[in-house]
């Protein structure tokens, strides 16, 4: 809770400094603020406090995910200066919006009431709409923003209607009370309830960008400024999936039969469509968009295999996905700065001049592909186990086939970096700070791959 407040204040401060045209202090303030928030967030560990009669619940689940979200945002901000090198103006609006989006996502992970869920989602989405279009004079960016906005608001309409129906059916928007209601009327669920639930599920599915509501994702990811894409692909997705998990886990576990099949179908479709579409991409940024979709599909498995332990697995998966994606995008930004294109060719021979970046990228790719002993593998196989223990073998088989396919397009940048002759004559210069971050990320991927239990058993 305090984290949320802190970040909001920081955002406002940032806006203020921007208003008085101070560029220097912006990022330091953000860094300090986020670190502070991170700390405050962890303070509440193991004492699940309920704020404002259960509007917001700071239990380990939300705290863990918030930690991930804040940390990711911090990383994003660390990459910001490199990305915005050419820009002169203070950019306070963008930073502030990112922070607001973060606030929204933090709200989503810990909501105790559908109202909070909606508010969180909208806070995040609205900020993201603008961020997507933040490159005012780039038609791609505009288009991305527009598409995102149209589809997004459309989807939230459904979400809202669903919430309304649920409210009507259960007489409350408090997760706990909804649960109680469902326990009582487990076997006599009204059609209204089912429709409402399905509409909510659809809304959430849209937010995590899973098939068949994934259409916005590739275009938006490709069109938005890369830094923002990074943010969306990581924070946005993780927050949404966490919220989705909390929703399903805390309220609708009793009537899982009514939504499990639907989600299974979603998951299978997502994995296949995501991986297959990524298969033929030459534009790496778009490829990551599709891979993001595919991973959303994998994360759905965690929700399908609903167990308390699945939360830990989901956390691990989010962590692995986030770190890998951030690293990949960071390198992508670098390469883009150098070559001016997102084409896979721009990676040619990167290993020659920038071994660290290349190494990190390779690790990230292998981790996403789920090759041992990286964290990606640990996450995947824990996920598969929790699914298979629910007797979901077909789903797992599809997922594994998906991984097979994914290996191909994940390996392509690696081959390009290590095998192809370099196109650039000199090394791409990146701040040592940047290098450090990237290397840290790669290191994390290996370490967590070796000791994933540390994270799984957190919650």
């Amino acid at each position, binding site marked *: 809770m305090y984290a949320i407040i802190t970040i909001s204040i920081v955002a406002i401060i940032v806006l203020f400094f921007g208003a008085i045209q101070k560029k220097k202090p912006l990022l330091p303030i953000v860094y300090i603020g986020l670190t502070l928030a991170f700390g405050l967030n962890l303070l509440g560990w193991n004492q699940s406090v309920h704020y404002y009669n259960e509007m917001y619940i700071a239990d380990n689940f939300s705290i863990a995910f918030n930690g991930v979200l804040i940390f990711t945002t911090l990383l994003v901000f660390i990459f910001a200066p490199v990305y915005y090198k050419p820009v002169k103006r203070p950019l306070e609006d963008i930073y502030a919006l990112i922070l607001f989006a973060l606030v929204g996502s933090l709200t989503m992970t810990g909501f105790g009431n559908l109202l909070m869920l909606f508010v969180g989602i909208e806070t995040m989405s609205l900020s993201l709409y603008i961020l997507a279009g933040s490159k005012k004079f780039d038609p791609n960016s505009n288009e991305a923003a*527009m*598409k995102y906005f*149209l*589809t997004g608001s*459309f*989807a939230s309409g*459904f979400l809202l209607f669903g919430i309304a129906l649920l409210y009507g059916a259960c007489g409350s928007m408090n997760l706990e009370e909804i649960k109680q209601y469902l326990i009582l009327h487990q076997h006599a669920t009204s*059609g209204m309830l*089912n*429709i409402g639930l*399905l*509409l909510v599920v*659809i809304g959430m599915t*849209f937010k995590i960008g899973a098939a*068949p*509501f994934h*259409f*916005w994702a*590739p*275009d938006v990811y490709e069109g938005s400024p890369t830094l923002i894409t990074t943010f969306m692909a990581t924070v946005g997705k993780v927050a949404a999936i966490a919220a989705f998990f909390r929703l399903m886990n805390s309220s609708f576990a009793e009537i899982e039969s*009514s*939504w499990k099949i*639907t989600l299974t179908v979603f998951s299978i479709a997502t994995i296949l*469509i995501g991986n*297959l*579409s*990524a*298969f*033929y*991409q030459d534009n790496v940024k778009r490829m990551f968009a*599709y891979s993001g979709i595919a991973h959303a599909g994998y994360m759905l498995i965690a929700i399908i295999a609903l167990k308390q332990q699945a939360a830990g697995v989901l956390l691990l998966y989010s962590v692995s996905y986030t770190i890998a994606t951030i690293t990949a995008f960071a390198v992508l930004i670098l390469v883009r700065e150098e070559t001016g294109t997102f084409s896979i060719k721009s990676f040619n021979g990167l290993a020659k001049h920038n071994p660290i970046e290349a190494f990190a990228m390779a690790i990230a790719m292998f981790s996403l592909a789920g090759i041992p002993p990286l964290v990606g593998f640990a996450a995947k196989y824990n996920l598969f186990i929790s699914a298979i223990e629910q007797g979901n073998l077909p789903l797992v088989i599809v997922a594994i086939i998906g991984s097979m*396919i994914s290996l*191909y397009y994940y390996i392509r940048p690696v081959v390009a970096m290590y095998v192809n002759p370099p196109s650039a004559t000199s090394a791409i210069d990146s701040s040592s700070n940047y290098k450090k971050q990237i290397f840290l990320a790669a290191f994390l991927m290996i370490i967590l791959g070796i000791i994933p239990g540390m994270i799984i058993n957190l919650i």
Partner: protein
Amino acid sequence: MELISILLLVFPLLGFLTIGLFQKQMNRNLSGVLASSFIFLNLVAAAFLFGFVTASNQTLEVPLFDWIKFGDITIPFALTIDRLSALMLLIVNGVGLLIHLYSIGYMKEDEGVNRYFAYLNLFIFFMLTLILSSNYLMLFIGWEGVGLCSYLLIGFWFKDRANNDAAKKAFIMNRIGDLGFLIATFILFTTFKTLSISEIAAKASLMPSGDLTLMAITLCLFVGAVGKSAQIPLFTWLPDAMAGPTPVSALIHAATMVTAGIYLVARSSVMFVLSPVTMDVILVIGTVTALAGGLIAIYQNDIKKILAYSTVSQLGFMFMGLGLGSFSGAMFHLTTHAFFKALLFLAAGSVIHALSNEQDIRKMGGLRHKIPFTFALFLIGAIAISGIPPFAGFFSKEVILTAAFEHGLGMGLIATVISLLTTIYMFRLIFVVFFKPESKELQANHHVHESPKVMLYPMAVLAILSMIAGFVQPPKLFSETQGFDNYLSPVFAKSNSLVAASEHALAVQTEWMIFIFPLLIIALLIFLSYKRFVNNKELVSPTGIQSLFAHKLYVDEIYDFCILKPVTFISDIFRELLDQTVINGFVNAVGSGTLFVGKKIRLLQTGNVGVYLVLMVFSIIAILFFNIIL
């Protein structure tokens, strides 16, 4: 005793290693001496053992160590020395020693002389392993080992492609036989749960005659023997093997290795006598081979080839002996044959040596004045092999002939014809090479010289042997003491006891017939061939049926057509079509297929937000439909 028998293997191996490892450093003359001395030591040891087993009529079992041992399978390295192996020891080491000595002279000028002697010692080692082994798998070691050595020695002059081809051919054809042998060992092990020769003999002797398993075993073993001893259909490698140095042909491809097949059958006599089918097969194969070999030999013009086919024919003759159940007879002929065939080869070698590597007899003639000793020795060998008394060949052939006649008149006659063929081609050879007026180029060539003593003495020794060796067992007509039979009787006692003694011993007058009749024909033949070959200068080119034999029955061509070509063809098909096109193609197709699907499926992403919205709504409707209505 144990020590000595082990030494038998140690010496030649030592020789091989010392000479082989230090070829570079070693003085070229030294190596020959060294090798020969090792073999000499061996010969002494062999003689000692021979004496021992002859005196104390017992078989020596020398276990060395367990080679393969786990679970219920135990295959030791162990040596067996009974009278049979002792006899072989004498032959191999004796002839081996002589040929080593001969080689010192023969290979003097060759630059690879050290390598040569190394191989020669290695060969002796493997041959002795073969002879001494107490179980079939260890025997197989020697079996393949000698094959390897023959490969190395045939291809000794490896610069020449023909030699390599010959070597390769020999090895591969042997391998075909070896497969038979190997399968035999499998069956043996599965039936008897052991591979020890003696135990198997003991167990087999309890089985009924005509038992199918035994038949299978013996047939497989015989396949091996066919490969090794160059019987039809696997005989064509032996003539080609003449590409190697002549002493090698004498040692490996006349005296010792090729007789391994005979030895194998004799070793396993118990099983063979118990499977009459196999015995008949052996008899038939042997007869056909002997006949064909003899006929082919008549139409050859290469001095070594003639001798090679004669070897083929003689080996066939031995197999006839085996097929007729006269194991000791076969062994007897093996012994004498080792002497005079080695002699003949060495003599031929000395002829070739004299004419500086000329092998075509059409280019020879009138050499009896130029190289008298060689001529004399050659003549002795010829007489011996033609079976003219009192030389060795006569006696050993006599035994087999008798057996043949005991088996039946027809068989006997065929056998006689075969033995007469020998006379024809041998004396053709003699007359053309030594009597025929010498040809132009030969007169031009003046430095035709007699071979050095180091080559002549060994031949002399062999000559003496091939004169007197027969007397250990004169025909029944003259003496009741069947020395050779008695010597080997303990070895074959069991197998002989298993078959009913041949129904009717021959009447005395028939024996006289067998004895006199051939001699007359031989005399006649010698006279005829003298007329034919000495007077007309040029040998008429063979016609009709003759050319069939001249081209050794076209067997090579048949193989080429039936086996080589198809295999190469299939190989190409597999490589080009199946492997590249079909299998690899399929794998790649899967990859590109996925690529194609990816290519298509991403077109779903039209980029038109209106379409997205529509699709979203449709899927929503579908979901609601499936969940609520159904």
